[in-house]
């Protein structure tokens, strides 16, 4: 057999065992035929946990406590989207105090989740190491700063929820309890000190050598006049969408792909991006002047088409979360009541908030007792799944399919991790299988 024929008939099957530093498990399947990408799939094995079913027949507080268990990293986001939908049904509007404090609590989750991602999950990719523990040997200062910011995020959540994972404070109409002045001033003090650290963190991330990979994609995020979006707004995109949240499903369609237990979502039949970079792209004008100046100084032009700017977007949102929480808590006063009363009733309602990973949309219908009749939850990672596959296709082609498997794998992992996918119910790991023929 000639050398050529050998190559032609070559079929290589590679299993690179594990993609670490993602939340949960998935797999990446690549087939390369005659130097062309013939198949590319991001698999998600999340064993079905049937959360929507667990909500049926249950009263509001059980719904709030249960949806938290979908994700240990963003339980606040799940609780907030749910409580918002239920409040829409019961016709109850929380006090201005409760609305402001929910924003602070949510800032805590952004701070916690983004810091965890930047330092424990993403940064090692850009320093040629495998873990934050290894990174700490190279740059202990940066890792310790990151863990402190993460801890501060947890403290903010615990201030209103008792603990940062599956907090217990949120209820229909507001909160179960209001934190004391003493507890608030202790956290405020830490926030004040963290301002400099947030500044340094942003500059540090800007110094990473992020790949320059401009792509064409649609960003989708909430938008509300005069504020950076967290808990309210209309759903807007740079493809011209401007929808009230209860109209989202007239443009967004979910479908099931054979290789994934997470439903995929498309916006008018096209992949789209949700998350920090999408938020920043659509809401740059709502950033405080100081942050805008800082971003200009480090050279981030918005909107950005470079997906790898997501890391910088997370750092910017950490800056925002620290400063925003501080400015709201500075004038903290204990309210007469942390919640307003409500009467559960029949109806239909939608809730939509910006989870750390992007738009998190809930819709419920309730019976005459206010108990849940139907539930639908559209999480950010399933919305990003089609975009991630699109990105992988483009990035790997740009990298060159003739590159060694190791390099293809590493770049593929980097691309996927950049989205901070939360495959939180999953069991195994991301495995890369390259089949060449």
């Amino acid at each position, binding site marked *: 057999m000639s050398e050529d024929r050998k190559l032609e008939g070559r079929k290589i099957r590679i299993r690179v065992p594990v993609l*670490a530093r993602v939340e949960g498990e998935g797999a990446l399947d690549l087939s390369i035929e005659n130097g062309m990408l013939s198949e590319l799939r991001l698999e998600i094995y999340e064993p079905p*946990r049937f959360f929507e079913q667990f909500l049926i027949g249950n009263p509001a507080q059980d719904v709030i406590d249960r949806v938290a268990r979908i994700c240990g990293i963003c339980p606040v986001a799940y609780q907030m989207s749910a409580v918002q939908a239920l409040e829409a049904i019961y016709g109850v509007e929380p006090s201005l105090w409760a609305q402001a404090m929910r924003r602070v609590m949510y800032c805590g989750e952004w701070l916690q989740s983004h810091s965890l991602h930047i330092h424990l999950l993403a940064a090692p990719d850009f320093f040629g190491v495998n*873990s934050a523990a290894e990174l700490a040997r190279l740059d202990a200062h940066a890792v310790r700063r990151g863990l402190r910011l993460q801890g501060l995020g947890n403290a903010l959540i615990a201030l209103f929820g008792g603990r940062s994972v599956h907090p217990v404070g949120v*209820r229909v109409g507001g909160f179960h309890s209001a934190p004391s002045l003493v507890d608030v001033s202790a956290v405020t003090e830490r926030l004040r000190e963290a301002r400099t650290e947030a500044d340094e963190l942003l500059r540090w991330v800007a110094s990473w050598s992020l790949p320059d990979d401009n792509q064409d994609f649609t960003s989708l995020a909430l938008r509300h006049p005069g504020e950076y979006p967290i808990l309210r707004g209309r759903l807007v995109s740079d493809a011209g969408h401007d929808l009230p949240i209860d109209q989202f499903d007239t443009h967004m369609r979910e479908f099931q792909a*054979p290789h994934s237990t997470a439903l995929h979502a498309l916006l008018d039949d096209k992949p789209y991006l949700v998350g920090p970079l999408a938020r920043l792209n659509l809401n740059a004008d709502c950033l405080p002047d100081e942050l805008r100046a800082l971003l200009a100084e480090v050279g981030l032009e918005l909107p950005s088409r470079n997906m790898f700017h997501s890391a910088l977007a997370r750092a910017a949102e950490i800056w925002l979360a620290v400063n925003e929480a501080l400015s709201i808590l500075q004038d903290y006063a204990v309210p007469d009541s942390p919640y307003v009363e409500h009467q559960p009733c029949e109806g239909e309602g939608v809730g939509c908030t910006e989870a750390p990973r992007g738009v998190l949309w809930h819709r419920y219908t309730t019976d005459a007792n206010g108990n849940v009749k139907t539930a639908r939850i559209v999480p950010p990672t399933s919305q990003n799944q089609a975009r991630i596959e699109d990105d992988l296709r483009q990035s790997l082609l740009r990298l060159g399919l003739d590159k060694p498997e190791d390099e293809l794998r590493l770049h593929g992992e980097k691309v996927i991790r950049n989205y901070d996918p939360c495959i*939180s119910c999953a069991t195994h790991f991301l495995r890369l299988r390259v089949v060449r023929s």
Partner: protein
Amino acid sequence: MATSKPSIAVHKFSSCDGCQLAFLNLGEDLLQLMELVDVRHFAEAGILDEEADVDIAFVEGSLSTPQDLERIQQVRAHAKYLITIGACATAGGLQALRNLADAKEWVAAVYAQPEYIASLDKVQPIRAAVPVDFELWGCPVNGRQVVAAVRALLFGVAPIDAKDKVCMECKRQQAVCVMVARGEACLGPVTRTGCGALCPSFGRACYGCYGAAENANAVSLGMRMQGLGLPAEQIAQHFETTTNQSPLFAQATARWRGQHG
């Protein structure tokens, strides 16, 4: 690598990731922990060697797919001590609620093409498949619990098994009893301590995150709830906690569902 430090691994099964966060949320203590022990496998933290032999394997999550059953055997084979962390690993977790229903119907309700979904008929705790040396309860477990367990084993002693009731902790904190003062259906009298009596201190009823306490009397608590005017169905719902498959809560749920139906 030759080392005298004890080694640990953290494995994940079907879960929300929240109990692994007990490690990842330790802050700067996480770096100290990593100095004290040799972390051989912890995928989310970027340390990978699933088949490494370790002194302690921490396991998060419940068994819900046929592959899980094979993988847990491997985890057990490579670990001297196996410690489950959290409600999913110790009692099946919230997702074990599907054991009470027809899971196949549920798959059809959530997924358009149910034939793609491989799952076991019943969600199982780790103990159902392999011997477990120690169980840390909680939904979620917290950093204090996991660090205390590691510390105890570093000293060569068994970790302390906190089986007391939330009620006791609540009294020590001098929180106002939500059941006595406000007539709320609180699970504090039957739930294991560990959270610090969080819910009562927030003015709301305990909902059972830490599972059943030692010598708990769920029958009596159910009767008390009936006395508060709750219908049987609502009493059953109260026992459908994140540890709904722990025998005490499973029996209580069955009892009140039975009376309802």
